[in-house]
């Protein structure tokens, strides 16, 4: 075999008591797409960061084409042809897309930054790889999905010979993800080595050549993708098979050790939840949540939501799909009380949602660092938010409550007193879910619940959502994973340019129909008595 393009040898890394990597060996050939999978907190991001010069390893070293590297900072890594797309964005909020992409390797003309050239090359790259971005837009104004695309453009622009992608598709739409993998294959064909960290095993099997599985910081499996099944990977990852495939979580969740038994309504065992009659609401109203002709304007006075009406019954999960920036965010903001509507109403159990954050709605935001957590606060403090009541607040109570949630939702954290920023991406997401799902509210609004969480946790989260539904809560689920929507939702709403372009029972929500509605195609069936105008 030829000399690997890059090789990690015996990498060990500890953070205090946590051993994130424990003697990891990993080699990537030239032109190979090498996937790295593992549970949340298995040490994937840490390994990639070491390779990229962000962390010095405690032991072990990195070889590039057979030569030992001294990686003191990313500058050294970049100098050796490495490029990385981070799980957490590293973008300059006040600069434009083009500036973000070229910074550090700027096109110059007569000693001066050549903005026109920068925009052109960014536009060209974006077109070539089918990534939809406006090179002139300010990063701070862009939705997360678009930001992710900018991160990818940055790596492409630098023509890295070894490209590290840490969960690049976590916030991409399926179309975009497909585009990304086409691009990855193309790059590999050009001789680029790609390290791909992801939780989506279908992506691994489709796009990867080989897979390395990490568990608790150690390598627990190495597979060629050919002839390997998702189940093989899962077994290496979590040491057992999944009881049910994630896509079938709609069925009553199988009992696994990690599941919160308290949340499981006893009546559901063996009975398909969809067949269950929704429990009655006080006052006899048929709907938990009613949205009537809602209109929201954004900062510039442009209609972000232009007349949306729908309702959610108790015991129903309603999915929301749509390309990023179609008004989902504003809609959710109004439903949670975080934003005032321009006109229209949102009723929750017959009473309007109002003013400040409405505590009757549990809400899992899609923007983890921006809204759902305070990265520098402790895990315990993060788990408390929304439930702070009364006046006195003993640290024992806070930590005790946190410890219970950590236990119940199997969040991997060294200590509940450490900043949540030290948690791995997926564990932070689990913490947010734990906090919101543990609250007993009539309505649950969830954005991208499984973004960045491992397959085991995905299964668990889906089960929890189903349990919430079975408990009679109304669940609104916004997700860019169509499979997730189909697996969980009873109905799927599609938004396009601030309006509902579809309201389909799940059985009719095929990829084609959803895709059409997401791009504004009309002719979609609407339930009687409701209108989108």
């Amino acid at each position, binding site marked *: 075999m030829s000399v690997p393009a890059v090789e990690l040898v015996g990498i060990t890394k500890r953070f205090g008591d946590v051993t994130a990597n424990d003697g990891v060996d990993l080699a990537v050939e030239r032109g190979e797409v090498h996937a790295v999978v593992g549970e949340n907190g298995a040490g994937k991001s840490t390994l990639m960061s070491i390779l990229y010069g962000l962390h010095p390893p405690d032991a072990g070293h990195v070889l590039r084409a057979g030569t030992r590297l001294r990686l003191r900072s990313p500058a050294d890594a970049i100098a050796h042809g490495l490029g990385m797309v981070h*799980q957490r964005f590293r973008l300059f909020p006040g600069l434009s897309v083009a500036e973000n992409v070229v910074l550090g390797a700027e096109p110059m003309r007569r000693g001066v930054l050549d903005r026109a050239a920068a925009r052109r090359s960014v536009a060209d790259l974006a077109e070539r790889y089918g990534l939809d971005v406006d090179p002139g837009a300010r990063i701070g104004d862009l939705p997360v999905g678009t930001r992710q695309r900018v991160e990818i453009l940055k790596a492409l622009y630098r023509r890295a010979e070894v490209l590290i992608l840490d969960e690049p598709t976590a916030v991409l739409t399926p179309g975009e993800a497909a585009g990304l993998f086409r691009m990855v294959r193309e790059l590999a064909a050009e001789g680029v080595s790609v390290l791909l960290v992801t939780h989506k095993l279908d992506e691994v099997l489709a796009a990867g050549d080989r897979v390395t599985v990490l568990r608790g910081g150690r390598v627990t499996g190495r597979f060629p993708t050919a002839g390997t099944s998702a189940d093989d990977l899962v077994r290496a990852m979590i040491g057992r098979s999944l009881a049910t495939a994630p896509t079938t979580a709609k069925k009553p969740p199988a009992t696994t050790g990690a599941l919160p038994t308290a949340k499981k309504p006893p009546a559901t065992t063996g009975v398909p939840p969809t067949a269950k009659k929704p429990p009655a609401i006080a006052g006899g109203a048929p709907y938990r949540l009613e949205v009537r002709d809602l209109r929201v304007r954004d900062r510039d006075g442009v209609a972000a939501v232009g007349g949306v009406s729908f309702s959610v019954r108790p015991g129903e999960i309603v999915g929301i799909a749509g390309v990023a920036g179609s008004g989902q965010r504003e809609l959710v903001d109004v439903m949670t009380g*975080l934003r005032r509507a321009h006109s229209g109403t949102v009723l929750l159990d017959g009473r309007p949602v109002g003013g400040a954050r409405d505590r009757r709605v549990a809400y899992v935001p899609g923007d983890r660092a921006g*809204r759902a957590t305070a990265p520098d606060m402790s895990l315990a403090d993060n788990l408390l*938010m*929304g439930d702070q009541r009364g006046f006195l607040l003993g640290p024992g109570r806070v930590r005790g409550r946190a410890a219970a949630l950590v236990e119940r939702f199997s969040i991997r954290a060294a200590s509940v007193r450490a900043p949540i920023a*030290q948690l791995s991406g997926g564990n932070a997401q689990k913490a947010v879910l734990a906090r919101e799902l543990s609250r007993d509210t009539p309505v649950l609004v969830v954005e991208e619940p499984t973004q960045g969480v491992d397959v085991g946790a995905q299964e668990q989260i889906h089960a929890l959502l189903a349990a919430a539904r079975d408990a009679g809560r109304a669940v609104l689920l916004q997700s860019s994973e169509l499979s997730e929507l189909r697996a969980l939702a009873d109905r799927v709403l599609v938004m396009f340019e601030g309006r509902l372009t579809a309201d389909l029972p799940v059985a009719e929500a095929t990829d084609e129909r959803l895709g059409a509605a997401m791009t504004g195609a009309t002719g979609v069936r609407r339930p009687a008595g409701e209108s989108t105008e």
Partner: protein
Amino acid sequence: MSSPEPRARAVARLIAGTPAVVSLVGALLLTTLVMLAVGVDPGLAYPALLRGAFMDGNLEYTLAAYVPTLGMAVAFAIPFRAGEFNLGGDGQLALGGITAAALALSTGGAGSFVLPLIGAALAGALLAALSAPLHTRLGIPAIVSTLLLSVPAVSLASYLARFPLAEQGTGLAQTPLLPLAAHLPSLGASTYVTIGLPLVAVLTVLWLLADARTVPGYEIRALGANREFARYGGVRVSRLTALTLAAGGAFGGLVGGLIVLGAPYRFVDGALTAPGYTFTAIAAVLLAAGRPLAVPVTVALLTILQAGGQGMEREAGVPSQLTQIVQGLIIVIVAVAAVAKARPSRRPA
């Protein structure tokens, strides 16, 4: 190539393990060198520094300076926990002081010292609270507005002391002596250590408790850590911003009142701002680096340095410029030592 490396690294780690010690030792070495260079005998200066802070009856001055500095530290720290910078301490101090003086004079002492203190705290709170709507409604950050409001407030107090409330026939711009009933009771024999000390101590403890063990304290911390997160969690962001600024301002005003109601029992123009309590306090809070419990300690450190500096001037005959040089250097070095304990590294990725 690789054999000497681990040893070098081990040594580096050993040193890095005790950076606070190393930098403190470095600090002392450096200041000693500076002393020698400028002709001060360190053998006289250091003991004089300590004596100036603790002995020969100096302890009461150190305590007397500790009280206002600690009060101003809390005045800065409360809004700081919520992510707001209160740089208007001088204005709150002066306005509180002149309000206390005006109340004591106009009531002829009928309100004892309690009414003037309440008035002082309210005046400071109102001034600081002005910055809240400027931030939440107009987007003008408190760090700017508090600073811009500070000088006018100091000027206003100075104007009042110079004209309407002025004592006649003296060379200084000052109010007349305040009525006896309004004087702060002293603790023990000293005139400098008054009940201001237990008052500020109790209030500080209350703040520390509120910060660590109450819902508002938690919400304030969350607000400071991530404003959007707090809003998402149902925190009344605007109201809490105003509340923290007002609470900080109240501390500032209260300290002004305490100074005026203590010796020399009048508002002397410039006397409240001249000692620079505001900035010493800010430095102390920043030194505490987000650990509220450390604030009383860092305040003590800087106060001792200042009180001791005076003693050093008097007793070792060190001229005041040299005291400033030594203090300046020590502050720089303590700032380094405070963080040298390797900040918790943020995770990447």
